[in-house]
Every structure is written in structure tokens, then in C-alpha cells.
């Protein structure tokens, strides 16, 4: 765990379980970022990222999202498009790009790299960068060259990224994270736990994240 360097008693740890490909994680993380940035306690908040792979059976090779969703939900591609366009409207309200015709694929490698990012204290930024590529519609979002480029942009040596991609490093941590969320009672992803006291399944509004931060802060430091 990284530390802000202030006494532990004055910190608030926020744990977030998420998947790169999860639309509500994408929106929820943006809202949580906004809530933290505007919090008077921002400098004393430790944000910890945990993996939750929503679909381990997703295809290894990226496919069009509408094709993937139609198969997963048993709906037509037009119905999948209607669903996605509603999500795009939600994302637009947050100022986030959301391209309906984008790739979908297995996120295990991406989540393993988020753990590598943690060793360089950029886990959250790395995950958010991956989501920007995926939901921004980059057809090569799952390509190793893209993942290396994003990581290097955050200061992670490209060789380390390629080594992780070539093996199965951190796969056990991805599974352990997921098991932990289930044990804690996660009934929705993203799953946010504030101060080990307050759990929020799913994405809530900026105001609700703000209230939860204040509530957890008061319980711990009040």
C-alpha cells in the first residue's frame, strides 16, 4: 500500500474493485475522482485499486462490442446498440468519450498490468488510461503495443510490461482481489469501500461519493 506520509489516523483509505471493460466502473471512477478532488481531505486519501474481472470467458482476441454484447445478453445487435447509446449518453454527461463501435475482449492481461502499475504507484492512472483507449474507441486498445505505450507514458519501463504480458505474473493477485470482493459482499461493480467501513456497490453520483467520503472520514477521524 502506498502512503501519503501523514499519520495513519488522519488517512482515509478508499478501496475500489473494478474491471477495465466495465462501463459503470468507467463512469464511477470519474465521479469518484471528482469527489476526491473536491474533498478537503484529498491530500489524506489513499486510493487503492483492486481487480474484478467481470467476464473471464470473454474472447482473448478483441471483437466488436456489439457482437460481444449481443452474444452475452442474447439480444440483437440493434438492441445492444440501443443499450450502448444510453450508456454513451450517461458518459457524455460526465464529459467522457464513449464510442459504441469499439473493441471488447478479455481483460485479464490488462488487470495484471494494473498490478504492475501499482508497483510504480500508477495503478489508478494506468487503469483509467486503458479505459480511455477502450471506451474512446481505439480499435487497438487491447494490443500489446497500446498497453506498452500507455504504461511507458506513466513511467513504467516497457520491458517490464512486455515481461508481464509474456507470462502470467499477477494472475494470482487478480483472482485474490476478486475473491476478497466476494467475501466482503460485493453485489455490484464498481465496488467501493471507504475506510473499511462503508461499502458502495455500483456507481453513484458525485454527491453520494462526497457524502460517503465525509461520513467515513467522520467515523474514523471525527
Amino acid at each position, binding site marked *: 500500500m502506498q502512503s501519503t506520509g501523514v499519520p495513519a489516523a488522519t488517512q482515509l483509505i478508499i478501496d475500489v474493485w473494478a474491471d477495465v471493460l466495465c462501463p459503470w466502473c468507467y463512469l464511477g471512477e470519474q465521479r469518484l475522482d471528482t469527489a476526491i478532488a473536491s474533498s478537503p481531505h484529498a491530500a489524506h486519501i*489513499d486510493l487503492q485499486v483492486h481487480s474484478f474481472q467481470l467476464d473471464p470467458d470473454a474472447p482473448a482476441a478483441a471483437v466488436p462490442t456489439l457482437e460481444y454484447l449481443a452474444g452475452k445478453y442474447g439480444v440483437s445487435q440493434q438492441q445492444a446498440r440501443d443499450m450502448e447509446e444510453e450508456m454513451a449518453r450517461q458518459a457524455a454527461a460526465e464529459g467522457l468519450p464513449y464510442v459504441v463501435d469499439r473493441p471488447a475482449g478479455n481483460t485479464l492481461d490488462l488487470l495484471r498490468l494494473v498490478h504492475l502499475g501499482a508497483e510504480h504507484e*500508477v495503478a489508478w492512472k494506468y487503469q483509467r488510461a486503458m479505459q480511455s483507449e477502450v471506451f474512446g474507441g481505439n480499435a487497438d486498445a487491447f494490443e500489446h503495443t497500446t498497453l506498452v505505450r500507455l504504461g511507458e507514458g506513466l513511467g513504467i519501463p516497457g520491458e517490464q510490461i512486455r515481461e508481464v504480458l509474456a507470462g502470467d505474473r499477477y494472475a494470482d493477485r487478480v483472482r485474490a482481489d476478486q475473491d476478497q470482493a466476494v467475501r466482503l459482499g460485493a453485489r455490484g461493480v464498481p465496488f467501493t469501500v471507504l475506510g473499511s467501513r*462503508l461499502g*458502495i456497490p455500483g456507481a453513484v453520483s458525485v454527491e453520494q461519493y462526497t457524502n460517503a467520503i465525509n461520513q467515513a472520514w467522520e467515523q474514523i477521524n471525527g
Partner: protein
Amino acid sequence: MADGTAPQRPQTTVPLVIMDGVADGYCDPGTGVCVLPGAATPSPPNLGGRADEPVAPPKH
């Protein structure tokens, strides 16, 4: 704000209070199905129409 992961966290010392039913939307951790909000979205089979409703697994 620090930025990292800690696989063994959180070490809960008090009961964790889960705030259910407040989400605008979520993805179901069991099925991976993502729930869309409100009536504006046509709800395909098994997707659910409201964010706070339980979700049935999709039929393939």
C-alpha cells in the same frame, strides 16, 4: 492522493456497512451483466429495467 493496490486490504475491524440500492448503475459481479438505468432504455431479456432491481443471469 496515493495510487496503488494492496491485495490484502481492507483489513476490516468493524462491520462493513453495504449501501445497497443507491447506485445509478452497476455490473453484476456474478453474471457480468451490466444494468442500465431508468425507463429510457429498452430492456432486453434478463437485463433488468432499473438499477436497483436484482438481475437474472442472461440466457444463452
